[in-house]
């Protein structure tokens, strides 16, 4: 059970997306885990074959509990040299996870002989990569469940059709609202067999409820071979809306209390003229379809990310009494959920993204955060976080740092204000930028430099 954020101490398995015998790759989504805050898609840290699922759907276990056993691949495709003899018993090196790493996650066990593993040839793998098809989610139709080229191409065609709908949803996954997912776990309903009736085709709570009598009437057809059997303890997985709200507040409370207890915050603020940025944005959006338009927040986020690269003392983690700078800028974005509470998933490598890409990632992240479809890595990787309360109408926000990060950037509302320009008073759009930073890692001079950098960047929007 990975720690999906510094505030998590236990999690509930809502759904397994793999079964024993499946081949998984590092980064593949293998399970859906419910935390105090949200349902999260959890990725595998390893490549190999799923040997055994140890924790059943509906079970709640502490962070650090082994969820499943993954066997090392018998023959490594390319990335690593093939092991000479039988696979070794060694624990793989875990990737560095600065955000409160659990003691252990998935563990490899030696691969035995003659596993009914659905092997995938390197050619098929390459084709899948070209087409952007996730092999972990494919059910092979070849001999002994082998994935064939036709399987991959069919999946790619399906993906293209799905791409016309809301972005970044895996086509072979059942789309469902978080409530429906939890209810299904509670009632032991297999989501794979459900037809969603929500406007976007997602499975809703009502769809799950409808499935219950149907399932009881036809018990023989209920067992879906691809899915892990539901444990009788699944009822514990359910969180009602009120429970969710309460556990969300408690999780936020614990983390923020820890932040304020441990981190000596200092604060700086600045007012930035947005005339150039907004003029540029308006001009650019004029020629574009609605779906390609940018909002001012995209410029603010890009400026925040680039400035974090310029001022690396604010981008990283405070761990073991010292600052360790991050080598990439993963920009955390505070997203308020409609039911209350918030999540702060990361936009990976935000400083390197073109504005249009950053914008679509931001939109995608908001949609998935609210749908309970974030990935574990997105919740643990942020190196600096931004809160943008401009849409809520406030002028400025001084945030609380997410430990173990060392800085939180705040943006208020872009609003027109009288400003002195060249000795005259003019009315200009301005935004108040703020920074809350960890005094252990940096001084206010550093924070001031950061905000000056943000301001400079916003005067040259064409370079963002």
């Amino acid at each position, binding site marked *: 059970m990975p720690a999906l954020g510094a505030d998590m101490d236990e999690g509930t398995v809502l759904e397994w997306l793999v079964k024993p015998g499946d081949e998984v790759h590092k980064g593949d989504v293998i399970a859906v885990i419910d935390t105090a805050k949200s349902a999260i898609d959890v990725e595998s840290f390893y490549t190999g074959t799923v040997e055994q699922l140890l924790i059943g759907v509906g079970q709640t276990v502490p962070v650090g509990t082994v969820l499943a056993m993954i066997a090392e691949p018998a023959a490594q495709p390319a990335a690593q040299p093939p092991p000479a003899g039988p696979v070794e018993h060694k624990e793989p090196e875990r990737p560095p996870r600065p955000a409160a790493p659990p003691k252990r996650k998935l563990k490899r066990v030696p691969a035995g002989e003659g596993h009914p593993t659905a092997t995938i040839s390197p050619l098929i793998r390459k084709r899948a990569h070209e087409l952007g098809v996730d092999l972990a989610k494919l059910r092979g139709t070849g001999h002994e469940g082998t994935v064939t080229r036709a399987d991959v191409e069919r999946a790619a065609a399906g993906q293209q059709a799905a791409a016309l709908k809301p972005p970044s949803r895996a086509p072979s996954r059942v789309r469902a609202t978080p409530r429906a997912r939890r209810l299904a776990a509670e009632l032991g309903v297999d989501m794979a067999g459900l037809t969603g009736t929500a406007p976007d085709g997602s499975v809703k709570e009502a769809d799950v409820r409808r499935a219950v009598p149907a399932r009881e009437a036809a018990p023989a057809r209920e067992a879906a071979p691809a899915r892990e059997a539901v444990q009788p303890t699944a009822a514990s997985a359910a969180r009602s809306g009120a429970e969710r709200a309460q556990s969300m507040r408690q999780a936020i409370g614990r983390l923020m209390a820890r932040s304020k207890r441990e981190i000596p915050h200092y604060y700086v603020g600045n007012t930035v003229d947005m005339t150039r940025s907004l003029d540029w944005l308006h001009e650019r959006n004029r020629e574009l379809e609605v779906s390609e338009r940018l909002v001012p*927040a995209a410029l603010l986020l890009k400026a925040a990310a680039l400035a974090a690269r310029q001022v690396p003392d604010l981008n990283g983690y405070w761990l073991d009494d010292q600052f360790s700078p991050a080598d990439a800028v993963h920009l955390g974005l505070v997203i308020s959920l409609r039911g209350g509470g918030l999540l702060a998933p990361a936009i990976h490598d935000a400083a390197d993204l073109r504005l249009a890409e950053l914008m679509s990632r931001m*939109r995608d992240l908001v949609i998935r955060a609210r749908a309970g479809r974030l990935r574990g890595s997105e919740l643990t990787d942020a190196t600096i976080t931004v809160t943008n309360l401009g*849409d809520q109408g406030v002028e400025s926000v001084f945030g609380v740092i997410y430990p173990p990060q060392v800085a939180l950037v705040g943006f208020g509302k872009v609003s027109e204000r009288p400003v002195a320009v060249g000795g005259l008073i003019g009315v200009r759009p301005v935004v108040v930028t703020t920074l809350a930073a960890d005094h252990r890692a940096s001084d206010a001079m550093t924070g001031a430099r950061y905000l000056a950098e943000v301001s400079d960047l916003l005067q040259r929007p064409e370079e963002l």
Partner: protein
Amino acid sequence: MTPDQARQVIEEALAQIAPDVDIGGITPDTDLRDDLGLDSLDFLRFVEILSGRTGTQIAEDDYPHLATLASAVKWLAGG
């Protein structure tokens, strides 16, 4: 497009973007952004859905027309 059709498209779009909002509780003067708590990304999606369903080109300069239910219905039905 008739005002009734416009109203229906708007309500469907809002139901999709903000499923928690009680559509029946929206009055003609409800400010769609502030009162319903739509942020700039929500609003962009709203515009996107309206544009797609009605075939109307909606420029940024037209956004003020979509401020309230009444103004949006009037503008969509007139355009």
